[in-house]
């Protein structure tokens, strides 16, 4: 995980070790997971998922800067674009449910059980 030596990495970036970025984005990711698992409101679950995706973006950018390799940053653009598409579909589904039940509490959705 040593940064590649042949390309000069800006000093500002190097002042914070890569491990810190790893820990920060893992923490954000875990907060997102806990949010998905414990919250009942569909919008909050949705926000937690976005938090997970943005933790990934942060991690990718950190790796990308330390390696002086642009492909990680390109991936981030793909994630942002796809996440935007996903948000539009997800909100549409939530609106559809709100029209039928007047609520977005996922606990009310219990029609399907084994």
């Amino acid at each position: 995980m040593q940064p590649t030596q042949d390309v000069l990495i800006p000093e500002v970036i190097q002042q914070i070790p890569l491990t810190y970025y790893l820990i920060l984005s893992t923490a954000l990711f875990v907060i997102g997971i806990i949010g998905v698992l414990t919250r009942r409101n569909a919008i909050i679950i949705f926000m937690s998922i976005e938090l997970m995706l943005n933790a990934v973006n942060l991690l990718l950018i950190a790796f990308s800067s330390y390696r002086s390799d642009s492909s990680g940053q390109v991936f981030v653009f793909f994630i942002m674009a796809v996440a935007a598409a996903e948000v539009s579909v997800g909100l549409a589904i939530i609106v559809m449910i709100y029209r039928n039940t007047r609520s977005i509490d996922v606990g009310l959705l219990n029609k399907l059980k084994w």
Partner: protein
Amino acid sequence: MLPIVLLSVFGIALLFLGFLKSKAVLLPAALLFLIITLGVNFLDWNKTYLYFNDMLRTNNLSMVFTAIMLGSAFMVVALSSSFINDESAQPAEYYALILFSLVGAVMMVSFENLIMLFVGVEILSVAMYVLTGSDKKNLRSNEAALKYFLMGAFATGIMLFGMALLYGATGSFTIAGLAAYTDHPQTGLSLLIYVGLLMLLIGLLFKVSAAPFHFWTPDVYDGAPTIFTAFMSTVVKTAGFAALFRLLSVSFGGVYTFWWTILAIITALTLVAGNITAVYQTSFKRMMAYSSISHAGYLLIGLSSLGTQTKQAIVFYSLAYSVATIAAFGVLILVSQQRSTQTITSEGILTENFDAFNGLARQNPLLGFAMTVSMLSLAGIPLTAGFWGKFYMFSTAVERGQIWLLVVAVLMSAVGIYYYFRVIIAMYFRDGATEPIRVAPFFQYVLLGAIILTIGLGIAPGLLQGLF
């Protein structure tokens, strides 16, 4: 990469066709578009091409998987003729979404870069979220869509974190770059690559509904309109396994010793969870959902004992499984539509129960026979394609010497026979409704095609050998 281009263009064309007053043109148009794409898919046969700056690679294997998915989609679309009579249905959008989702599926079977794997998974999944919730006034469909969406996005997040960690360890997103790193590690593999691979696997195993990531499957399959359940349980599964096979065989073949134990445990769990729970179902549709979980388990056998025969086994199994599943769902669509007045209850869902099939074979011999053949194929009885699918899968396990996995799989296929035969017994030996079910000509051709394919591959399984 003509199939991707064509499917996108045809999808947009279908949306425009939706402006026409007559809905009758949509179904033939969608079928025509799928047939054209299927033909064009084979233009690159026996050649290997890299497309879009090394983002996608087509070879015979990816073309065979594409053909299986396009064929499944063709059969599903042909079974969807009831949309014309449905006032609230929007067939143009449904067919367009099916074509768009196939774009994602094709990307998943021919990816060369993890970016394409991610984009393909998302294109396929987002289209499926919409189709799952397409019955807008139905609360069950709404609930299925929300569950599928939240769980799917959650799994995508985990998969992405895995990809980011793999990138951190190797500095590359291409599967060749990953392979170069795992085959010749300079200073031993870093922890990042293990965690990354594990999270990437969790994300993909979620999509193919392997235990313990299968809890969404029965609810989503049950709540979604049956026609889209058929699409979901065949195309999504085939694409997911093709992607898993490509990833594990090309990139991580070198670290097989690391992941095979985990995958073998997941395989055994999937087999047990799928088959045992399926026994307790009273709804046929839900039974098929658990059955699809159990078939994910059989397909995973080939991956967890990755070897020379795995490729052939996965292709054959996914073909046999897709054909049989679509035929079974096709019969279910007819039964639940036309027997709804006879067996409706306060909950209004009993039309999908096993009881709805009572006496079906006497009134509709073709429907009964199609259902019987597909159930026998899913159960793995000789002279059907499903038998050879299981046979190839089990021989990969023998090749790797994973006898305990084989024992679990054989025991669980014995359990499978019990719940598949419940339908056959209901159709042939129980008394039920006396009115025969009307079968549209399109339906008959699809069911006949499925019967011929299943029995033909069961008698001559060598037809597919040596093709890829």
